């Protein structure tokens, strides 16, 4: 690999843009998509590889090419540096997620409580603007406090976040739906919120709830039927 190619590849990855490295196995010639000119077959193979997140080989003429997708990192933004967030923290990295915890209450959002996790003590609306959730981001609110949860959910609903979850009972969620509706979000937006958050595994303890949330996020990412949003009381999609 040429150092210049490596630098371009790393610049795309640092900018959180999807990029594909294509290598001709006969001589090591390399191309990047998007960016470099290449036959349509290789463009199609690049797009497919980003979609499936799987590296593989394509034969063009009698030349074998290795198609290696590099998607931006998966992220989980958690609002509320609470006990459940602490239980989610050690699960995130092994599952392939960079986890960020937002909580303006400094007593909660401490390095001591969440070692190795990115912390933001900004107010959730400012934190969400800075973090800019995208289609590879999950957003989970855990504070139970509408002053903190609602601005984060409002921002998440305006983003392409692939998963939005909110802790709270069905009754709490019905009130939340009413508040978010007042902010201008319709039934379709409400249908994006997983609430009560997490797969129904009858979780009781914080680690069990963390497991149910992480499982639901993985299911949503992988497109499993389990990740389907449950019906919300008082809302017809």
């Amino acid at each position, binding site marked *: 690999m040429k150092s210049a190619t*490596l630098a371009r590849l790393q610049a795309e990855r640092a900018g959180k843009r999807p990029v594909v490295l294509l290598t001709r*196995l006969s001589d090591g010639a390399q191309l990047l998509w998007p960016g470099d000119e290449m036959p349509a077959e290789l463009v199609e193979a690049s797009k497919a590889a980003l979609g499936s997140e799987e590296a593989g080989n394509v034969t063009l003429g009698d030349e074998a090419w*290795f198609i290696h997708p590099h998607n931006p990192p998966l992220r989980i933004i958690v609002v509320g540096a609470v006990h459940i967030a602490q239980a989610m923290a050690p699960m995130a*990295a092994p599952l392939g997620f960079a986890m960020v915890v937002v909580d303006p209450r400094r007593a909660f959002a401490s390095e001591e409580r969440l070692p190795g996790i990115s912390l933001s003590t900004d107010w959730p609306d400012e934190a969400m603007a800075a973090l800019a959730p995208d289609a590879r981001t999950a957003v989970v609110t855990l504070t139970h406090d509408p002053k903190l949860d609602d601005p984060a959910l409002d921002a998440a609903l305006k983003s392409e976040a692939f998963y939005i979850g909110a802790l709270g009972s069905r009754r709490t969620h019905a009130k939340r739906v009413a508040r978010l509706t007042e902010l201008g979000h319709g039934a379709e937006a409400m249908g994006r919120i997983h609430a009560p958050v997490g797969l129904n595994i009858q979780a009781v303890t914080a680690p069990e709830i963390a497991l149910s949330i992480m499982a639901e996020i993985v299911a949503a990412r992988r497109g499993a039927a389990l990740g389907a949003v449950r019906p919300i009381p008082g809302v017809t999609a």
Partner: protein
Amino acid sequence: MTQNDNAEDILAIAATWKAAGEDVAIATVVETWGSSPRPAGSRLAITKSGKLAGSVSGGCIEGAVADAARQSMVSGAPQLLDFGISDERAWEVGLSCGGKVKVFVEPLS
């Protein structure tokens, strides 16, 4: 806890080594069959001085890949390596991987 690919950026490590004046090669799993331990796209960075980061198997072929990488650093030419990890051989070295892998080795120029 072992780091996964998402946590460990082998390309960044390779770039850092290169910037520090080391001779560096990158090995990438490009094809797998059977129960090979690391998926296509897994990377190993190697320096001529003997540093290793990442992995292309559960440990059974890293030595051979490093040898090939040193050849590539000298010749400047990439290589496509084929490893068939037979069950007998796997047991011999204390690994149960089985499977086969193809590994592309390229010098960082």
